[in-house]
């Protein structure tokens, strides 16, 4: 076994084509054979750009200004070298690994194609995915996010790469799956040299041989330790009236032939924050989509005691105004072709009938409300960081002055620091505007800090429901205990 490093990055500088601050500057890295190098740093610190350079890839708009990258003896920035690397030497899994699966082909077909001489079962076994035969006949959107991520891992490992580049493997997963993926990564690490981009301190400390901290594209040495799970509570407002803002009774929804949500009863008191937690595939997102009228359901959804139609299109404008969805994924939540200005103007015009100049004034107010400079109105999402995108996402929901915000995993794609800032903003908005919030999350620290009550979902049912203190202090159900246990490790 050679002791030669698998990859060497020397004095690499990458920056925007038109000039301006470098995204990565003067970076030196060495990835030892079978070693694990972790790249950590905040959103926008150049972690992903540095990781992608190992495949000889530069995101559009970026150019290499100097330095070199060699992986397994190949120069990554020659066309031939990059092609050779991507053909099998380097495997890359992006942040949303599940998105690497072809959405229009069955999982079994994709696995069989990648497996070559090996069996699909062997690939699945390597990522500890125990599934029935029906699983292989499903399409990626028919399995849970965690399962899809494991399949993506299986595909990436099928070619026995020399170097594995993992970009935020645990982002967007619930606590149980995060623990599973951490274990999985820890097992894989003896076999393949790995570059791990992560802001999950537990993952990094558990698996990394070496940690490189990046800040503004530069390598800085010491990593400040950060406690993710803090149980400090925000100031709690006393509710004045016990009015029910949003309730669901006997809500049942299906995905094809499987029942995703089975007879759920829930209610949120006006001004309160209800957290929905549960493992991937427990029906949290489907429930949210039912509440806003995007997914057909049986049962009843009521806004302030009035039962509303099942489909958004058949609800009144006033009813649609009352509940706003803050969509998952900081990238897919905003239209990449639309400026912030247009994104905010559309709801203003559509549900509030605002015309010029009132609309422009309101847009400036909204941006100020979410602490973004007014100049951001002209930007497209591509020029916003993850945290900024999520602020725009919030501002868009606030534009119609809703009563209830349905926040679906709004921090899952953000690093801990940025995610906290977004949640603090949400808490402040709740306080100032008297908003009712339904917070879908897998992060119990968030639940502990922000929610008043919590509903734990498993397999489409509410298995535990009550005040946050009571549920977290004395979890009854096995799923709650697993979530609490995973968060405590």
């Amino acid at each position: 076994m050679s002791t030669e490093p698998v990859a060497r990055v020397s004095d690499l500088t990458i920056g925007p084509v038109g000039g301006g601050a470098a995204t990565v500057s003067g970076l030196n890295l060495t990835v030892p054979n079978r070693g694990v190098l972790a790249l950590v740093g905040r959103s926008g610190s150049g972690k992903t750009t540095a990781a992608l350079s190992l495949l000889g890839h530069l995101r559009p708009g970026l150019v290499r200004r100097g330095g070199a990258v060699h992986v397994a003896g190949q120069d990554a920035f020659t066309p031939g070298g990059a092609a050779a690397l991507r053909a099998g030497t380097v495997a890359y899994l992006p942040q949303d690994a599940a998105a690497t699966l072809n959405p229009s082909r069955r999982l079994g077909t994709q696995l069989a194609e990648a497996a070559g001489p090996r069996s699909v079962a062997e690939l699945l076994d390597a990522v500890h995915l125990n599934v029935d035969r029906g699983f292989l006949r499903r399409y990626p959107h028919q399995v849970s996010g965690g399962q899809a991520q494991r399949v993506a891992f299986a595909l990436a490992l099928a070619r026995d790469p020399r170097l594995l580049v993992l970009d935020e493997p645990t982002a967007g997963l619930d606590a149980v799956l995060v623990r599973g993926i951490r274990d999985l990564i820890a097992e894989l690490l003896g076999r393949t040299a790995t570059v791990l981009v992560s802001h999950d301190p537990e993952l990094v400390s558990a698996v990394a041989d070496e940690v490189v901290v990046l800040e503004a594209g530069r390598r800085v040495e010491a990593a400040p330790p950060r406690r993710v799970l803090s149980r400090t509570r925000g100031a709690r407002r006393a509710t004045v009236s016990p009015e029910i803002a949003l309730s669901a009774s006997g809500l049942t929804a299906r995905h094809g032939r499987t029942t995703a949500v089975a007879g759920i009863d829930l209610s949120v008191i006006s001004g309160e924050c209800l957290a929905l937690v549960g493992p991937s595939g427990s029906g949290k997102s489907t429930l949210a989509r039912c509440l806003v009228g995007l997914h057909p359901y049986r049962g009843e959804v009521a806004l302030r005691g009035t039962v509303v139609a099942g489909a958004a299109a058949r609800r009144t404008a006033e009813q649609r105004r009352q509940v706003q969805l803050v969509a998952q994924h900081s990238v897919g939540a905003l239209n990449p072709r639309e400026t912030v200005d247009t994104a905010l103007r559309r709801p203003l015009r559509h549900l509030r009938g605002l015309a010029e100049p009132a609309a422009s004034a309101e847009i400036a107010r909204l941006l100020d409300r979410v602490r973004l400079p007014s100049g951001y109105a002209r930007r497209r999402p591509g020029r916003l960081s993850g945290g900024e995108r999520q602020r725009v996402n919030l501002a868009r929901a606030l534009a119609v002055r809703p009563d209830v915000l349905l926040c679906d995993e709004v921090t899952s794609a953000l690093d801990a620091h940025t995610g906290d800032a977004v949640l603090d903003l949400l808490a402040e908005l709740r306080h100032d505007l008297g908003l009712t919030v339904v917070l879908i999350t897998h992060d119990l620290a968030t639940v502990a800090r922000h929610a008043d009550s919590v509903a734990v979902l498993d397999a489409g049912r509410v298995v535990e429901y009550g005040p946050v203190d009571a549920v977290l202090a004395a979890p009854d159900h096995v799923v709650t205990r697993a979530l609490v246990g995973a968060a405590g490790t």
Partner: protein
Amino acid sequence: MTAGRRSPATLVVAGFAATAVAVVALTGPELATGSPTAPVGLPFDVPSAAHPLGTDAIGRDVLSRVLHGGRTVLLLSAGATLSAGLLGAALGILAGLAGTRAGEIVVRVVDVVAVVPALLVLLVLAAGLPGSDLAVLAGVTLVSLPFSVRVVRAATRSVAVSGFVEVARARGDSRWQVVRHDILPNVAGTVLAETGVRFSAAVHLCATAGFLGLGRGAPAANWGRMVSENAAGLSLNMWPVLVPALLLVVFTVAVNLLADDLAVRWGEA
């Protein structure tokens, strides 16, 4: 998508080549001094001062015929590409947004058209409407359409499940609003790249139609037909075959390069 980036020099050459061929084709009939249909000498005469590209199978001036023969091919293929592109985008987006079942039905219908060989469609239409350029236009549109519909539908479906479309739908934005603001701008890059490919295919098909004698008949000049008319005399005078063939090849390759680049730029803008 960095792989799609061409060097600026390549793009300048492609832009120049495409423009030059288009100018020759579109303004050719005005530039030509001689008649494209009058015999001026012996068949397959070699180039001379009076006839720089020689004469063709029945002694007509090749230069005049080249200058007259591009307009039909280019206008027909541009027209067919445009109509197939617009129809394909409209049908593709509709099918992409419709429920799974309705979308599948559209795709199956489109598949039925797609499995019929392109030339067969052209021949049947030309037989029904002999000597009509309109039949060629309709035929080329019809055979291009299925591919556009499929590609646009796939692109639409991937955009339709994204968060911003969900938010807009939950807010109650009309279907047209969603299409205009959310779907169209995000599938436009795909549509552009696809249209470039279709255009090359359309030029090829229109030239083939000419080669087979479909559309407006002899003695009208047509680059595609010139190749077939003069293939027999290739050893005597190669120019009446080579020049129109080269013009077609240069044009389609250049347009393809430009369309690819445009699509990449759209994605980055």
